[in-house]
């Protein structure tokens, strides 16, 4: 069965070729630590390079073949977002990264599609780059973080961006800046910053867009939430109750938040068959798409057979999740 993965990260050659050659790339450099591991350094940011994140595109395709994944929708390694940088630096890095992603997609058009990364700290610049990425480069939309330097998306400054995305027909794929979640300060132990923090950040993104009126202001906006939408489908009942009981929850929202569940797409990255079943039952099988988080250690190891092996899903649901929904949503060519 065909399979298309919306949640697959990418290490752009334009970045890593420069770093491996010992060159500076927009203020970024690479060093080896005492154990010989490659560490990327940019200001306060330090990121140890994982082996599979160093693979080239040919090696990546071999791994996709082994897993039975036909298409990766490429999104950059999130530590390259750069929202904290001066806007002009992030504009430059985003353009180079997006050109690189588009080049890889053009080279292997039957194996890849791509998402842009955007300088979200400068909304007009983000709009310009999104239009270029979609209109000129042929990317499918953009991956953006759950907030921009602490600013949630219900803030009015972001509305022109969402209107531009809607007009461009771009899909927005929401995914945290790795290692930065709301839980990190609270409990830095046990990897909870990732395992609880990422789903929690995604839940707040859903709520910011819905309670903030963005989904009403942009009725054709296409949004996909990574990590199964976090705790959205499970926690929606309490959000509805809050809407019912509290006037401040209704300031920008004419209907209960559960009415907006089907305005979103959700990847399948739940790490639990019962949770995935619950997600499908809540939002509909036509709203759930394959997402693996390749090549992170928190990925689904054998994503296609994981879905195929689920006794609680019908064949039609498996087909919808593995490829049908994304082929339609991204307007990908049928092989």
């Amino acid at each position, binding site marked *: 069965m065909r399979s298309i993965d919306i949640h697959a990260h990418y290490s752009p050659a334009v970045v890593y070729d420069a770093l491996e050659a010992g060159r500076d790339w927009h203020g970024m450099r690479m060093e080896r630590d005492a154990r010989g591991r490659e560490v990327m350094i940019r200001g306060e940011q330090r990121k140890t390079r994982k082996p599979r994140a160093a693979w080239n595109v040919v090696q990546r395709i071999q791994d996709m073949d082994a897993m039975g994944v036909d298409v990766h929708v490429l999104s950059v390694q999130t530590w390259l977002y750069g929202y904290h940088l001066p806007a002009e630096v992030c504009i430059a890095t985003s353009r180079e990264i997006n050109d690189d992603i588009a080049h890889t997609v053009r080279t292997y058009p039957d194996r890849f599609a791509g998402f842009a990364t955007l300088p979200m700290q400068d909304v007009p610049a983000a709009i310009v780059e999104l239009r270029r990425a979609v209109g000129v480069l042929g990317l499918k939309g953009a991956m953006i973080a759950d*907030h921009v330097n*602490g600013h*949630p998306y*219900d803030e009015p400054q972001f509305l022109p961006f969402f209107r531009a995305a809607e007009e461009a027909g771009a899909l927005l794929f929401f995914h945290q800046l790795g290692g930065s979640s*709301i*839980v990190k300060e*609270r*409990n830095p*132990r*046990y*990897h*909870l910053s*990732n*395992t*609880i923090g*990422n*789903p*929690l950040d995604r*839940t*707040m993104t859903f*709520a*910011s867009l819905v*309670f*903030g009126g963005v989904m009403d202001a942009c009725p054709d906006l296409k949004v996909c939430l990574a*990590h199964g939408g976090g*705790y959205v*489908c*499970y*926690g*929606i*009942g*309490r*959000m*509805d*109750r*809050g809407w019912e*009981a*509290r006037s*401040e*929850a209704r*300031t*920008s*929202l004419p209907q209960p938040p559960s009415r907006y569940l089907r305005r979103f797409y959700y990847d399948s990255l*739940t*790490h*639990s068959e*019962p*949770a995935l079943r*619950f997600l499908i*039952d*809540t939002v509909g099988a036509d709203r759930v798409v394959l997402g693996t988080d390749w090549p992170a*250690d*928190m990925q689904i190891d054998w994503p296609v057979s994981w879905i195929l092996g689920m006794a609680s899903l019908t064949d039609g649901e498996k087909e919808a999740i593995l490829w049908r929904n994304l082929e339609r949503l991204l307007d990908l060519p049928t092989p």
Partner: protein
Amino acid sequence: MTDQPASAAAAPAPSQHQPAIDLHAHMMPRGLWSAADEGRAWRGATYERDAEGRGWLVVGGVRSGPDPARLRSTPEDRIRDMDAAGTDVQVVSMTPLLIDDSLDTDVAVRAAREVNDEIADWTRAFPTRLRGLATLPLTDVAAAIAELERAVGVLGLAGAEVDTRVGDRAWDDPAFEPLFAAAEQLGAILFFHPSYSLVWGRITRYHLGNTIGNPAEDLLAAAALIFGGVLDRHPDLKVVIAHGGGPLPFGIGRMDRGWQVRRIARTGLLHPPSRDLRGLYVDCITWSEPALRFLVDTMGADRVVLGSDWPYDMGLEEPARWIRGMTSLTDDEKRLILGVNAARLLASGGSR
């Protein structure tokens, strides 16, 4: 009472006759009301009325409200409300909005004793309708243990309500080990309930600090107890987490994956975290029958107790009727949730 599996629970009485025991019901101490009437602060907390006459609590600079008028009920008023709602027993705990980790220990101890004495007065006046959970001066663990021992041993309370964190410390902090050991030995319930959530720090709008933040706090408390090894070290500790444990059952798969791939997730836990789900109890406040069904499927019907969050607007008006009316629960499951599980927890000396 022994700890029987769900299918072996005694007495085949139908759920319609099962007494309903609400483990999640709050009170505001009269000391606060007296102080508010006289325009004074009570243990650092003040109570303000807005232009529309609604009451707001201000604790440690945080303003919350508006408060429901019923918060000021007498025990008799409360019991009339319970009768109307179909609740047989409430296990009363102080409103967690009054928790203030910045109080000096001696002030916190006096406040806790005053509140716990008042709750105990109520339970003695209405022993078949009201049970109580203490509040503890948690910034001083030795003082908290002393007050827990007094509350359970002298006052006859069933345990204590505690926050989902203590200041900046999570519940996996080794400083709390003696408290867990004492609670375990006393057979005391520890009911984890947030006072203030981390989500308020990100967004103050739309009540999300409560609707997303409180379940997140509940989950973080459960995760600290699980990953920190607290449940393993204290197999008889009676832990109850508010608001259904938050998204614990839905999110446990990702926590298992984190345990599998990251050494830092295994520092306190030699088995996947999902195995500890049966080491704790949660209340039923999920605001969704499908979510409650998922919770029961994941944790077991013998791990879920009735809760209302009385008298707040984010609470269930008629929790027992909500459970009894569900089509997705069996009659046995309803009995367990309505009261069998809570009765087992409330039995003195009983283990989980």
